[in-house]
């Protein structure tokens, strides 16, 4: 209990980058400067934009930047979390395109690395890293949104046990209109209910019996789709994480989505930097209310960045994050909406124009509004925080 001054003084918190981290940052920056397309690509929620984004992903892969945190053998760089955050900072700073590959590289990829068989790793990861195969995720069903455990789409074993035969319907699957494969959970034990008897299955979207029906999103583009399954035959080898374990495998994937990997802070820091530039350009210097609001937002984005660095240090030191990741999800999604609302407020009469004299914000605003909905609504996240972080009694 009584420590000597010498013991105490040793203070290895270090918020500066190591030489190695600096070199990594410089390498990423140089590559991105040389390779990022000079004009923004059309939205990946269009057929043309999707293919252009796929080509960009292939280029990223050639530079070995598509999946920096994956092991080298699957096309990654084996970068630790800090380097991954550094890469993300450089990526978003450079104005590079959004990641059409995100369902695969950030969600399914880490799940396969964690629970996949050696054959599955060899089969799926390299094609994912190259974006030869782009993935859609198929959890939600018309009657199973927040209540995902109530899903009804079924997978039954064929008589010889070599295949799943799938029937049912999924909905809201992002990018499914143009994606190559999908992953999702299906009820494989017809007697089961809720979280039991579910299995995590992977399949190509051009398998006979699958019909994909695009759905126009709020912005009018085809961001997501319905997927209908009508006696779809899928080899049993495409089961991920074991029959009946679908819920826990899905929770691992969802944890990546809510936690650090899908929404790294850099995206928001860049959005807030853009907001600050907009304020400097067109803000009324005497408008203290707006000045304070922009400042608050900067603090939130910075707070999120710091929070993430604390989280990754914890992971690097062998800790793990559980339900706290729900805090992140609420924080980034609400901050993103707020940033866009403020930008539109600043734009005043130009806010409602799709292409105005200033940088475009309105499409980003529409997209930000989906943040509190997808990846588990923010109400569901608050339930999780209350039950598992604050230990309040279940309702």
């Amino acid at each position, binding site marked *: 209990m009584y*420590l000597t001054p010498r013991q105490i003084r040793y*203070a290895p*918190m270090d918020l500066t980058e*190591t030489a190695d981290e600096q070199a990594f940052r410089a390498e990423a920056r140089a590559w991105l400067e040389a390779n990022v397309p000079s004009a923004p690509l059309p939205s990946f929620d269009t057929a043309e934009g999707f293919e252009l984004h796929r080509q960009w992903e292939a280029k990223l892969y050639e530079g070995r930047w598509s999946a920096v945190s994956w092991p080298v053998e699957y096309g990654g760089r084996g970068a630790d979390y*800090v380097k991954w955050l550094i890469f993300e900072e450089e990526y978003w700073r450079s104005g590079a395109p959004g990641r059409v590959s995100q369902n695969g590289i950030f969600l399914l990829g880490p799940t396969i690395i964690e629970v996949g068989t050696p054959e599955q790793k060899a089969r799926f990861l390299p094609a994912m890293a190259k974006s030869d195969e782009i993935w859609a995720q198929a959890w939600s069903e018309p009657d199973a949104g927040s209540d995902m455990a109530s899903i009804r789409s079924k997978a039954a074993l064929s008589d010889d046990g070599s295949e799943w035969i799938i029937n049912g319907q999924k909905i809201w699957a992002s990018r499914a209109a143009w994606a190559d494969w999908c992953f999702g959970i299906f009820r494989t034990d017809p007697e089961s209910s809720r979280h039991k008897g579910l299995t995590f299955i992977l399949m190509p979207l051009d398998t006979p019996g699958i019909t994909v029906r695009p759905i126009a999103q709020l912005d009018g583009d085809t961001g997501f789709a319905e997927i209908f399954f009508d006696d779809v035959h899928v080899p049993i080898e495409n089961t991920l994480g074991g029959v009946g374990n679908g819920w826990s495998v899905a929770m691992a994937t969802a944890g990546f989505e809510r936690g650090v990997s899908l929404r790294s802070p850099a995206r928001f820091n860049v959005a807030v930097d853009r907001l600050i530039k907009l304020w400097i350009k067109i803000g009324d210097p005497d408008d203290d209310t707006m000045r304070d609001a922009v*400042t608050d937002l900067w603090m939130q984005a910075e707070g999120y960045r710091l929070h993430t660095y604390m989280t990754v240090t914890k992971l690097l030191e062998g800790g793990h994050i559980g339900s706290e990741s729900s805090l992140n999800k609420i924080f980034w999604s609400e901050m993103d909406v707020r940033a866009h609302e403020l930008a539109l407020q600043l734009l005043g009469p130009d806010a409602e124009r799709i292409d105005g004299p200033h940088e475009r914000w309105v499409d980003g605003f529409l997209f930000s509004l989906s943040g509190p909905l997808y990846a588990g609504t923010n109400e569901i996240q*608050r339930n999780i925080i209350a039950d598992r972080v*604050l230990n309040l009694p279940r309702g």
Partner: protein
Amino acid sequence: MKFSFTSDQQQFAAGLREMLEREFTAAHLRQVWETGAGHDAALWSRLAEMGVLSMMLPEADGGMGGSFVDTILLIEELGRAAVPGPVIETMTVGALALAGTPWAAGVADGSVAVTAALMGERYVPHTAVAGVVLLSDHDSIRAIETSQLQLTEVEGIDHGRQLVTLAGTETAGVFVGSDRETATDAGSLAAAAYLLGLSSRMLAIAGDYARDRRQFGQPIGSFQAVKHLMADALLKVEFARPAVYRAAWSHATDSDTRARDVSMAKSLASDAAQKAARSALQVHGAIGYTWECDLQLFMKKAWALMPAWGSASYHRRRVSDAVLGPR
């Protein structure tokens, strides 16, 4: 890049928490309130003996020679227990300003408590129990023994933080430094860390109550409105936390961004405390609105500290000057 504390730092903070949970419960705090003592002399000696009070004092002065990074978790623990008296002032501003002076030994052994009014405070806290007051003229800092001053008591809401107005300050005292901003940043940051601890405590008290109190045949914590209220408060606290820790790093390393970082920490910690207090009170229903309920001891400390060491507007303005350019 490594954003965490050493196991020594964490263990010391955990040890302090255990000691406070055992030896300084809410009942002890209530006693300080009721006797009007303004602080707890026995606890003060205990904190001195453990090296908590002198963490930031140089070894040459009999201190621990620690940095703000070594100290920040300790202040958070003191906040969790709402330790009364000029504890943050003595540990941070006092240790920085009085290092190398004849008072330093007293800071280390607990015989000299220090308070400060370096930001034009109208009411100076803790003066009645402090041996030395730090005052400023522009950028320079003077130390004055309280015995040389005339104190007029003013009643405040937090009885663990007695207030006075001072007279006789014009000429008295000894020059102890010319870097007022480093000192006020230390005070602001210490207040932020203390508020963080207070916020966690208020949420813990509310959580206990929500598990215990039943209405409509079930614990009130099972109602979603209660859950979401508390989840939102926790969100504010958990995102203020890294800002406070980073500001400790910036202060310890004398970073170029220290002013911005300290002000960000104080802004976020004050907002979090406000939200935690409001939510904790609401969860309690009418019992929370009574003198009997311990929650008040923590809420009132939070309300007193939120405007202390720079108001919300002062700190927000400093952040916006750094981020958006000066007005």
